[in-house]
């Protein structure tokens, strides 16, 4: 897929990796699933959030959302520590945005602040 408009390729790879995440997430208690999928030289790592904690932390009427939040990262290098800390900090950011009562869990995060923060973290760790 050496295409000039390869903007969708990362999405394809990450999306395809969802199958594996779905399988793996139920078999392990680890939050970070390292290198679960590969496409050419691109590697997918996944951070699975703890669903239960998330549910309790939400107000009661949100309980019916079963939130399976996964952060998926497509990368080529293998600096595991960096990826781990990156995921943890992004998780913190995500929880912060979840605390916003106007944010519907599972919807797109439109906050530009979140965006820039994640960008900064990516520069820091990856």
């Amino acid at each position, binding site marked *: *897929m050496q*295409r000039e*408009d390869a*903007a*969708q390729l990362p*999405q*394809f*790879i990450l*999306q*395809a*990796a*969802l*199958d*594996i995440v779905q*399988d793996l997430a139920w078999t392990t208690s680890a939050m970070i699933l390292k290198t679960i999928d590969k496409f050419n030289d691109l590697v997918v790592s996944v951070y699975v959030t703890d669903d239960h904690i998330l549910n309790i932390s939400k107000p009661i009427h949100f309980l019916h959302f079963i939130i399976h939040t996964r952060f998926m990262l497509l990368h080529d290098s293998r600096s595991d520590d960096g990826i781990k800390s990156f995921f943890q900090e992004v998780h913190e950011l995500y929880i912060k945005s979840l605390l916003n009562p106007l944010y519907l869990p599972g919807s*797109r995060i439109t906050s530009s602040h979140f965006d820039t923060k994640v960008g900064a973290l990516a520069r820091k760790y990856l």
Partner: protein
Amino acid sequence: MADPASTPLGKMLLEEITPVVMVLCTPYVEESCLKNVPVRTASDQPYRLRKFKLRLFYSSDIRQPNLEVAKERLKKVITHVGEKNFLESSDPSQVNNLLSSKFTFDFDIFSILAVGFLGGPESEMLPSWFQFFNKELVRTLSFSDHEAFDHPVACLLVVSSKDDEPVNRFVDLFNTNKLPSLLNDGAMDPKIMKHYLLLHDNQDGPFNKATKLLADMRNAFGQNDCQIICFNSSQDGKIHHQDNPWAPFVNYLTLRDYYKSDALPTENLGGFLNLDDLNEIKDFMQELSSKHIIPYMEQKIRVLNQQVSATRKGFRNQIKNLWWRKGKEDTIDTPNGPVYTFNSIESQIRILGDYAFMLGDYELALSNYRLISTDYKLDKAWKRYAGVQEMMGLTYFLLDQSRKEAEYCMENAFNTYLKLGSAGRRNTTRCGLWWAEMLKTRDQLKEAATVYFRICGEDTLHSAVMLEQASFCYLLSKPPMLHKYGFHLVLSGDHYKKCDQIKHAIRTYRSAIPVYKGTTWSLIKDHVHFHIGQWYALLGMYDVAVTHMLEVLASTHQSKTTQELFLRDFLQIVQKTGKTFEVLKLQLPVINISSLKVIFEDQRTNASAAAARVKESLWRSLEEDIIPSSTARSNWLELQSKIMPRKYKESNICVAGEALKVDIEFKNPLQIPISVSSVSLMCELSANPEEGKLPKCMYICIHAFTVFLLLGGSNILLLYATADMGVLHDDCRDINSCLILSEVDFSLEGGETTVVQLTVTPRIEGILKIVGVKWKLSSAVVGLCNFEFNPVNKRVGRGRRKQHSPCSDLKFLVIKSLPRLEGFIHSLPEKTYAGDLRPLVLELSNQSKFPVKNLKMKISNPRFLYAGNQKELNADFPACLKKKMNVEKSGRHASVNKTLQNLYHFPEDISVQEETSLSWPLWFHAAVPGNIPLYITIYYEMEGVSSIMKYRTLRMHYNLQVLPSLDVSFQLSTRPSRLQEFLLRMDVVNKTSSECFQVHQLSSIGQQWEISLLQPVDSILPSQSLFAGQSLSCFFMLKHSPLDLIILKISLQDRRRSSTSEDSIPSLSHIQSDVRLGPQDNSEAFFDVSSSPLADFHDCERSSQGMSSQVVNFLALTFFICITINQNLMLLPFIFFLYQGCEYKVDFVFITQLPKGNSDSSSNTPLVFSHHACDCSPSSMSPISWLVDGPRTIQHNFSDPLCEVNLKMTITNSSDAIASVHINTFDSPSSNNQPIDDATASQPPEHQSGWSEIPIVNDTKIITTEALTTCVPKSLSLESVPQFIWSGTSSTKLVLQPRSTAEIPLQICVFTPGIYDISNYVLNWNLTPDGENQGEANKSSGVCQGYPYYLSVLESNFKD
């Protein structure tokens, strides 16, 4: 697991890995065979016996197939399949049939179950052509040199009976020159079993000749190896077989034949063969295999086995072999390893293994393969090694042993082939295919998919097919891996596209759509849809292309260039279709349905769009008292319900000929500009079923009937029908002639949102329904949006029926045309300065044919706008505001009540006639700065036009921006030296940035005040103009005279009597309640603040600025009873004020003008400004006031050193309590300080303020009190050098009764001539609350500093 042989892979292996029989034949044989249509009948015929198969090949085919040809062939196959599948799938009914129906659920457990249950047999889901393709792919590898199972086992030599000297021909046939190169170069064993066949065509001659030839053959080649076949027995070729005689073997036909079989006529297949011929062929093949080939192979196996056992089996042989190979190690350097000829021991072992494999002795095969594989490995003959590993894997599989071993072997083989690079490429493919098949058989579909993925190599077409197979593996795995499925389909589609297999690409992409449907992976979706659209366009299927392109149009997340690309391609495709599309849910631009706002006018009409946007509740509260009361309305509703069907009672009413406005918000989600044109509403206008259509229809019927009568009765039915058709035709015409729809064109920049107002004007009565909106995007595509299809909450602008469903909100009962007033206020400024006072003209025009009457007007903010008198319409402004000397004063028409309620009744004789307009004067006054909304409602009634609507209201809305102009503040304080006199300080600041105001006058309201300037204006403000930012402080004397009472009384009575008596005016005129601040020599008259409109506006100001007017009214009411006899209610407040004594309150009007010719003389420039201040009262009012009276100047001959001056202090207690006053006098200024300081400390600050007058050198200079209170004592102590002493007691105490005055004599002694300031005394007063009177309780005591009283004592030169 089932029998491995019955699995797909097993079947394939049993078919593929079978003994090969080489066929050598003469041209005559070919010729006679060609008569039966299949090209290579006899030669390709396989025979099946107990799953034993032979493969027959022409000797010319026994070679490694040409790569290019093979590829071309595969490509053809794929193309063909693509065409076929594409045709099927492009049938719209089948679009969803195969897979998408199973994906209607999104990604959840249901879809997984659905695939599992609905999937049924896997073969149904898996396209069958994969099998063919795989086989063909495998077959391209046949006759490779490193494998033995393609080596011919036997050779079948065929000679036709037509040939000359058949026996010699047989010998010629097996000439080494003609043999395949593989046999000649030693890779294959040329010494193979030979079988001789004589072919006799019955059409060519009698059988006898053939038998003779056979006998010769048998003599020459041996009894057993020669045979004859007679065929083509049928004479005319008319024998029709039930089915294709080759059908049982067709699955063994090559793909080429599979491909051809569709094209070839099948009915004549084998037409020259009769049943006997077929049986003969069958028998021959059976005999050949059972009597010759199998025994031969068994024989060979036995021989080879012995050979191998002798050389390689046993411990000794192994050691020897190992050692021998070790020694050989250094010499071998070729990449493919050593070359093995057929008679080398390695080849022999391999042949042994392959033969054993072919005959089903897998154990033997496996042991031999194992044996040879180590040898090849040691020899680094990697290709052979891989081949053997591959076979080992297959053998393991067929033995159904040790899955792990099998997989290991396959992987080993695969990797080894892979290492070989391009040379082993195709072997890799075959190995991978087998491996994948093996995994699939064992339900390891996920692994199979990875193997397929690994097969992908440089050949994109093959990769595409492999990827597609991988995707199916993912789909069929349990649980289905749909994401992977989609991804691999897309990958495969990309590969197909690269090989120009567009149809395949479309097919795969389309299969992937359901996977991504309903997800938020927008980039993926855009990619998929966009490419499908593009590819369809390449195929010329623009209609389908457009539907896919529509999906990506509103891709907000894409970059600008991508959006441009999408839009451009979309428009190109649409252009190519050559027609305009109507798309129901076009995403471009986005319509914000919730922004939908319908503005319609029933009895409520709007003068402007601004008025329509005002909240309905605001209008309703404003209109409350002018529209007919609720009881009247219920009657009106009852009336209405009789006329209208119940169904439409609820629906909105609009009037024919009047436009309905619909505001809709369009948003461009993209970053690139788009152009939208021809935006219009879609409406339906139908006749009112009960009111409109029936009467009309009946009317026409009656009409028809009369015609019929006149004609003399020919055909009533026909006429009736015609009449009906007329109505129908009328209905059909509706959209064209009965509705006027507006069309709007606009273009939207990236991300822009615009609100578009669309109108529809019904021209006839009926029921109008607004269905939706349509627009044209880039003049290519028509987008439609139906309002009702969107269950979004809709708020119809007028809000009256919010609880109704949107449908009913968009449905209107159109009633007959009614008069509708248009209203406009001329020259109402949008922006002005506070205080602006000007006349305006309200113009009401009636365009209809009917007059309207009973006009009423209500204005939300009477402080700003006020209805004038009709005769003021053409009055000269501002002259009309001025006081008119010696002419009758225009009485204040009893407008107090009206003003308070903001309601103005037009005189009853006023009506707006048809097609005329009415002008009415309005007074405008910008009372306060700020953004001021003005709401005006005009109510009017129509006569006998409609029974549904009897009145209408016209709503006008204006927004004013009032800028601050002059900040006027007043401060009133008692004048210390005078009772009933006040000092008024006026501070004016010009807050504008550019305007210059000319001060004109200050007037006090109420005639009991006399106002005069303390010093001429020229000295304060020589220019009489206040420039921007300039401030002005001005002092006035305000005098309150109780005498005014009588005059006022007279003047008020005058007014009541409409100023009939002339004599009262002079007496009034001497009260100077206005002060001219402008040029003093100007003879210009004052503005009359006591007449309309200034007085009216002042009333409004009063009512809004304070509660005092109500207090006045209340008090007036209490006095009402007492003075009713006097018949003069207007006096009461004044009387009250006068007797109240201390409650001095006064209102001021400050009037300025813009200098004429200052600004441009446009009509919109304000001319007069009036600023109103109400209820100004003295800021500090001590209940005790006093006056020191005495001589100002005395002459004294100081030969008598003591000069006594007698002074008189008049103290007034104006409170209701008894006051005790303590007067302290002190002589020295130093002792003066202490009590003052005490006073400042103990007293609240307001007691210090107050105005004092100090005649210093410059008499006009004014010092404010604040400065005075603090600095005066000190300055006095410094300045008053000459001393005087108080004579008499230094402290006097007296008690003052409420509202009483007392006089105290004071005396001072002066010793030298000079000017003395007699202010060094302090009044301490104390109020003793008199029982119930608590009013002044908080001011029960105080200290008053004496004010300066200057006494000049002169030396008298005259002797007495």
